[in-house]
């Protein structure tokens, strides 16, 4: 049992404890209230932040959609339609339309309407008059560069609700023609924020319009360029052929001489053969008359008659004459064959060919046109086959040989033609012991119409045409020259595994 004093002490203790507990509870409640208020404020802020964030997301999604043109080859009209669709959705408008005049159709007006509720385009020709009236009467409440947002009160023939706002936007297209976009809203308010976003989307959209216009211009320019390239290619082919004919003309005298020689001895041999046949015929007639007169002839008379026309000599000489004529005819036929392959027009006739054969043919053709004092020394080993145009390469080599001959005129000299094959290439060196070239000539060597020959003798196209031909064969040409010593042209062909 507790005494009264102990009881009183205990009561005092419990009172103090209770007071501390009360005090602690009040402190805790205050803290709780503080936390609660803070939580409420935080919640409010979060809700506001979330609303703003949702708006920002919507704004950003709209701007991203404006910026991303789905099809890079989109037409101007489709680009405008895309922009109208996404802007109609963003501004929560009920309908939208556009007018896009072009140089071909400058009087184009509003004709098609985009309806937001079913997200489709409809042709509504009467819309033009309705929009034109609004464009004239409406006055902007919000204006931003090209955008204007006007309060309105009108009904569209194809829509039930009256429209409260008209959003209009205009911009320049080709030839300073003005395009228009119109959006119709039945919303009671326009959010100020929307206007800022439209301002940004405007720049993006106009940028896309510019890109599309530039692209269309580029496509047109590209088509023109392609046509020009085709014409140039045709002209180049003509030029190559013309140059070939010029070289052929220069060679004609030599070739004629080359053909004349065998032809003249064939002709004189034929004359001799005719004489021989006449003599044999005379002898034959004499012997026939003798047989008719005497019934027979003796061997002495027969031998005497043959001896009189020197029959033995005629027979042996006839064999020689025929062999010689056959050789002459063969020579003429060879010259004609080489010329034929050279003059053959071959811009694209790349075939598998032997560069050594081509060089030998070119040497044969060129040789006849060269000065008699010009000697051609050649070292042409067996070479790998390459894909090339025989006629074009003959033209290049003949040109080099003719130039070498001209460089050594009038005294003549030696032209060396040396072919060599490495692992990846075939190298042809054509060198002469002529006058060589100075720096100026060397620098202009491949320039069209540059020539060192007297007026009327050189076209100035030979090496430039050769350069173009070699380029089309992926071959390179280099020059080593020394004044009064000589010049070497080095042509390198790539060898590909066939």
């Amino acid at each position, binding site marked *: 049992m507790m005494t009264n004093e102990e009881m009183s002490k205990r009561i005092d203790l419990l009172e103090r*404890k209770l007071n*501390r507990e009360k005090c602690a*509870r009040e402190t*805790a409640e205050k803290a*709780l209230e503080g936390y609660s208020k803070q939580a409420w404020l935080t919640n409010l802020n979060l809700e506001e932040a979330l609303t703003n964030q949702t708006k920002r997301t919507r704004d950003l999604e709209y701007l991203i959609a404006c910026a991303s043109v789905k099809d890079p080859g989109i037409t101007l009209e489709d680009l405008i339609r895309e922009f109208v669709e996404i802007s109609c959705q963003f501004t929560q408008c009920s309908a939208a339309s556009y007018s896009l005049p072009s140089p071909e159709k400058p009087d184009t007006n509003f004709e098609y309407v985009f309806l937001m509720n079913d997200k489709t385009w409809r042709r509504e020709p009467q819309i033009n008059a309705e929009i034109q009236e609004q464009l004239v009467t409406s006055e902007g409440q919000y204006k931003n560069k090209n955008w204007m947002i006007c309060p309105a009160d009108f009904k569209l023939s194809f829509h039930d609700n009256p429209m409260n706002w008209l959003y209009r936007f205009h911009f320049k297209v080709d030839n300073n023609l003005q395009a228009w976009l119109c959006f119709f809203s039945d919303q009671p308010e326009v959010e100020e924020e929307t206007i800022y976003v439209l301002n940004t989307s405007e720049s993006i959209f106009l940028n896309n319009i510019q890109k599309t216009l530039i692209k269309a211009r580029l496509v047109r320019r590209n088509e023109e360029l392609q046509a020009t390239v085709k014409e140039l290619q045709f002209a180049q082919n003509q030029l190559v052929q013309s140059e070939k004919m010029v070289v052929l003309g220069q060679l004609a005298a030599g070739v004629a001489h080359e053909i004349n020689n065998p032809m003249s001895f064939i002709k004189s041999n034929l004359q001799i053969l005719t004489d021989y046949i006449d003599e044999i015929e005379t002898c034959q007639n004499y012997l026939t008359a003798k047989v008719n007169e005497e019934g027979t002839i003796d061997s002495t008379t027969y031998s005497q008659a043959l001896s009189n026309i020197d029959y033995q000599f005629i027979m042996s000489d006839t064999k020689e004459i025929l062999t010689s004529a056959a050789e002459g005819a063969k020579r003429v036929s060879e010259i004609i064959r080489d010329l034929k392959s050279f003059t053959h027009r071959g811009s694209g006739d790349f075939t598998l060919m032997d560069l050594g054969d081509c060089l030998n043919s070119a040497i044969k053709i060129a040789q006849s046109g060269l000065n008699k004092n010009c000697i051609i020394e050649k070292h042409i080993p067996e070479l790998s086959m390459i894909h090339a145009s025989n006629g074009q390469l003959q033209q290049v080599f003949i040109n080099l040989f003719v130039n070498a001959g001209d460089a050594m005129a009038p005294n003549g000299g030696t032209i060396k033609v040396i072919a060599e094959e490495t692992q990846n290439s075939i190298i042809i060196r054509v060198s002469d012991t002529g006058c060589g070239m100075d720096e100026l000539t060397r620098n202009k060597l491949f320039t069209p119409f540059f020539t060192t020959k007297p007026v009327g003798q050189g076209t100035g196209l030979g090496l430039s045409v050769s350069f173009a031909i070699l380029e089309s064969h992926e071959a390179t040409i280099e020059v080593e020259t020394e004044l009064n010593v000589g010049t070497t042209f080095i042509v390198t062909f790539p060898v590909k595994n066939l």
Partner: protein
Amino acid sequence: MKGVILVKLGEFVESVFDDALWDEMLTEANLPSQGAYTTVSNYDDNEFFQLIDLIKTKKGLPNADIQRAYGEWLFEHLLTLAPEHALIIKDTFSFLHKAQNLIHVEVKKLHPEAIIPNFTFIHQSEQALTMRYQSHRGLCFLCEGIISGLAIKTKEQLSISQSQCVHKGDTECIIEVLKHDDK
């Protein structure tokens, strides 16, 4: 200091001794808070040290022993306030790492103003762990007690000592925890 430490100190004194001692201590100390502690408030560190000193004076116990005993008692009571995932305790060593790398980090997130002790693990083997205890409050003995309470929970036989201690004039407190056998 977080109010929970002082609220729990009151509960500890009342349960180990009696409520008369706690009342006597608070009356005598005449603290700014008057001992009306709540877990949601913060209090001056000195109130805690004054109360520990009063237990020492009144019961003739060394300060270190009081803190160790309170720490051991406190661990289990703090555990009831912890979130569920913090209650998974594999063993003492891994929980000490968890306390430093997870619990202290989360407490700091919830209460940025809280002053948290820092543990640096210097050496660890299967049987022994050496860690540096850093706190400007110097409650290394309380920490020893909490580790001891943790060992009770994990049913591990541990010996906990300090090879260096700021209360002995050292520059830092190094706590050595040694496992005697498996649980």
